[in-house]
C-alpha cells in the first residue's frame, strides 16, 4: 500500500516537472492539453473521436440498455459528483440507446445500503473502496466482476494504485482518487488576526487557544462519523513514529493495540479535544455541519481530505472565504519521528462492476469510458476536485486554484505516506467498533486503555 503511493508520488512529481512518459502517448496528451486550455466546448470535440467509435459499435447493439449506477456522491452540482454526472451525460449523449440511472447517497448511508445490496444483487456500476475493511468481505462473496488488467495498460494509472483493488492477482475495481488528508484553513482569517500556520502540534494547540479567545472555532471536525477522527489518529501516528503500517497490521491480526504509538496518538487526540481544538459538539455533528462551520467563517480550520478541494470553486460558499482556502499538513509532534512532509495519503475510492449484472459488458464499457484519461482524471482536475489515481500532468491548465497548486506541492514534496487509515485496515466489525469508540475516547467518556482494549476485542 505504502510503496505504491510513494511511486505514485514520484510519477506525479516527475510529470509535474514536465518529464513526459512513453512517446506513443505523448501526442495524445499534447492534443488533449490544447483542448483543455480552450475549456468546455473543446472538451466535446476532444471526445468526438470516441463518439464516432462508440456510434459504430452502438449501431450493432442498438437495443436499449439501462445501467444502474450506485454512487457515493450525492452532490451532483459540485466537485466529484459534478464530474461523475458530466461523464454520465456525455456517455448517454454518445450512446443514445443507453440510459444511466443514478442512485447517490452520502458515504455512511452508501456503505450501509451497499451491504444491503450485497445480499440482494448489486446495481451495475458501484462506488467501492480499495481497502480491507470494505473490500475483503465483498470480494470473498464474489459480487464484483473481474476486470482485465491488460485493458488499462495505457490509461495512465499510477503504478501500484490498482493493488488495493486486487485479490489473488485478479483486478476487481479501479481507483478514482489519491486522497490526502490535511487541515484546510481560512488564510484571510489567519492574516486578519495575525495567526500563523503552526509547525508543531504545540503551536497548533496554542493557536487553538487564541482562536477560541477570538470567539471562533479552531478546527471544524466531522466527529459524528468516526472515520475523520480515525484518520486524524493515523496522521498523528505517522508524526509520532513514521511508518506505522506494519504496527497496524500486526495489531489488527493479533487484536492487540498495546504498542505505545497507539496510546500516545490516542492520548493526543483526547487531550486536543479536551483543550477545545474542535467545535463544541464535534462528536455528534456530521460532515455537512462541520464543513459549513468552516465555509461560513465560523471555524478557522477544517480537517478533511483533498476531495474537498473543490470548495474553492463552490458557488454556494461566499467568495471571500472560498478564495482564501489553503491547506497545511498535520504539524510535527514533540519527540516524534515524522516530519511535516510525512503525510496521511492513500488510494481509496473507486468504481467496480457487479458480477451478476445483466448488462455486464455495457457496464464495463461505461466503466472504461469513465476512466479514459480525458474523463474522470481530466474533469476532476479542471473542477478542482483533487488528485486522481491517474497521471494528470497533461491537464494542467494554468487556471488552477491556489489551493490546487498548494495540494500538488504538498504531494510532490511528500517524503512518505501513511497508506490506508487505521480504521480501514481491519474487518468491518473492527471498523464499526473503532469509529464508534473513538468518539467516546476523544470526548473523555472512556479511557485510552479501554478504547484500545475494546477495538482489539473487535478484531477477534
Amino acid at each position, binding site marked *: 500500500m505504502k510503496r505504491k503511493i510513494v511511486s505514485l508520488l514520484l510519477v506525479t512529481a516527475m510529470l509535474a516537472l514536465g518529464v513526459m512518459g512513453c512517446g506513443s502517448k505523448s501526442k495524445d496528451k499534447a492534443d488533449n492539453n490544447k483542448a483543455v486550455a480552450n475549456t468546455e466546448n473543446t472538451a466535446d470535440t476532444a471526445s468526438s473521436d470516441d463518439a464516432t467509435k462508440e456510434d459504430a459499435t452502438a449501431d450493432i447493439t442498438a437495443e436499449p440498455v439501462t445501467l*444502474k449506477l*450506485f454512487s457515493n456522491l*450525492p*452532490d*451532483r*452540482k*459540485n466537485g466529484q459528483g459534478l464530474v461523475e454526472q458530466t461523464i454520465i451525460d456525455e456517455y448517454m449523449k454518445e450512446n443514445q440507446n443507453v440510459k444511466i*440511472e443514478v*442512485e*447517490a*447517497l*452520502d458515504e455512511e*448511508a452508501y456503505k450501509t*445500503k451497499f451491504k*444491503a*445490496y450485497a*445480499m*440482494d*444483487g448489486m*446495481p451495475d456500476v458501484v462506488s467501492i473502496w480499495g481497502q480491507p475493511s470494505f473490500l475483503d468481505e465483498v470480494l470473498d462473496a464474489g459480487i464484483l466482476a473481474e476486470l482485465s488488467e491488460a485493458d488499462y495498460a495505457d490509461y495512465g494509472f499510477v503504478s501500484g494504485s490498482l493493488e488495493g483493488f486486487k485479490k489473488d492477482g485478479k483486478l476487481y475495481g479501479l481507483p478514482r482518487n489519491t486522497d490526502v488528508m490535511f487541515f484546510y484553513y481560512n488564510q484571510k482569517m489567519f492574516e486578519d488576526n495575525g495567526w500563523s500556520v503552526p509547525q508543531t502540534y504545540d503551536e497548533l494547540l496554542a493557536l487553538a487557544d487564541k482562536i477560541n479567545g477570538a470567539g471562533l472555532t479552531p478546527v471544524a471536525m466531522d466527529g459524528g462519523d468516526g472515520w475523520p477522527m480515525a484518520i486524524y489518529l493515523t496522521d498523528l501516528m505517522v508524526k509520532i513514529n513514521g511508518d506505522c503500517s506494519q504496527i497496524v497490521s500486526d495489531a489488527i491480526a493479533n487484536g492487540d493495540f498495546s504498542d505505545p504509538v497507539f496510546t500516545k496518538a490516542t492520548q493526543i487526540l483526547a487531550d486536543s479535544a479536551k483543550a477545545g481544538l474542535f467545535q463544541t459538539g464535534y462528536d455528534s455533528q456530521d*460532515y*455537512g455541519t462541520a*464543513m*459549513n462551520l468552516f*465555509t*461560513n*467563517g*465560523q471555524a478557522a480550520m477544517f480537517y478533511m481530505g483533498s476531495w474537498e478541494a473543490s*470548495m474553492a470553486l*463552490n458557488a*454556494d*460558499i*461566499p467568495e471571500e472565504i472560498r478564495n482564501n482556502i489553503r491547506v497545511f499538513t498535520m504539524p510535527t509532534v514533540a519527540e516524534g519521528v515524522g516530519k511535516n512532509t510525512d503525510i496521511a495519503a492513500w488510494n481509496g475510492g473507486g468504481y467496480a462492476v457487479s458480477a451478476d449484472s445483466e448488462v455486464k459488458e455495457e457496464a464495463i464499457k461505461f466503466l472504461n469510458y469513465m476512466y479514459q484519461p480525458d474523463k474522470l482524471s481530466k474533469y476532476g482536475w479542471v473542477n478542482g476536485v483533487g488528485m486522481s489515481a491517474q497521471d494528470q500532468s497533461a491537464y494542467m491548465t494554468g487556471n488552477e486554484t491556489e489551493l490546487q497548486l498548494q495540494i500538488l506541492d504538498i504531494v510532490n514534496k511528500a517524503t512518505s505516506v501513511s497508506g490506508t487509515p487505521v480504521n480501514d485496515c481491519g474487518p468491518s466489525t473492527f471498523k464499526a467498533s473503532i469509529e464508534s469508540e473513538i468518539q467516546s475516547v476523544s470526548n473523555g467518556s472512556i479511557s485510552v486503555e479501554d478504547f484500545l482494549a475494546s477495538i482489539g476485542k473487535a478484531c477477534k
Partner: protein
Amino acid sequence: MSKKNRKNNDSVHIGRVVLWVILILVAVIQIFPLVWLINFSLASSNEMFTTGLLVIPKKIQWGNYVKAFIDGHFLHYLKNSFLINGLAVFFVVFISIMAAFACKRMKWKLSNLVMTLLLLGMMIPIHTTLLPNYKIYSILGLTDTIWALLIPYVAFSLPQAMFLMTGFLGGVPVELEEAAVMDACGIYRIVFQIITPLLKPSIATVCIMTFLNNWNEFIMASTYLSSQTWKTLPFSVLEFTGQYSSNYAVQFAVMALTAAPAVIVYILLNKHITKGVAMGAVKG
C-alpha cells in the same frame, strides 16, 4: 357574602391569567421551531450564522423553494406518498372489515385464534422485520417495487384496524343482519352493503391512523427502495442533506416544503382527525 364573591372573582381572574399563560407558553414551544424553520428557509445560508432568534432576510430567497421543489422531486414524491398511502389505507380497511366480520359474527372454531394472531402484530416491533424482509423481498424480486412498501405498511396497520373494527362491530345490533338474511342476501352483500356503512366512524378512524402512521415512515422506504420510481416524500429531505450539504437555506426550504402537505391537510381536516385520533387511541 359580597366580600367572598369579590375574592372569588379575583382568584378566578388570576386563574384565568395563569391558564392563558400555560396554554400560550406550550403553544409557543410547539410552534416556534417551525416558525424558525420557515424564517430561515427564506433567508440566505449565511444569515443563519447570526445571533438573533429570527432574521429579517436582506432579500427574500424564493429561489430556495424553487430548488427544493425541482431538485427535491417534490411533485413526484408527493404523488408516490399519496398513492402508496392511499392504497395502504384501502387494503387495510378492506381486509380488516372482512376479517373482523368473520371473526366476530360468524360461527367457527378457530375464530378466536385467528383474531388473536392478527392482533399479535401490534406487539411486534416493526423494525425487527427490516432485516429478514429485505432478504425475502430480494429473493422474490420485490425490492424497489411498490409492494415492498405496501405489504409492511398494510401488515403493521392491520392489527390496530382489526381492533377498532371488532370493537365497533360489537356495538352494531345483529337485528339488521337478521333482516338481511331474511331477504336472502349473501354474506358478501351483508358485509359490504349493510355492515360497511354502519362502520363509517371506525373506518374514518382507521383511515386516519393508517395514514398518519405510514405517511412519515422512511426507514423501510430507504432500505427497500433504490430508484426514484417509488420514493416517498421524506426522501426529499434525506437526499438534500447530501445534495445541498453546503447550502443550509435550501435544506430548510425542502424541510418546510416536505412538512407542508401534511400540515395543510391536518389544518383543513382538523376536526375529523382530532376525533379519529381520539377514538383510535382510546379504543386501541
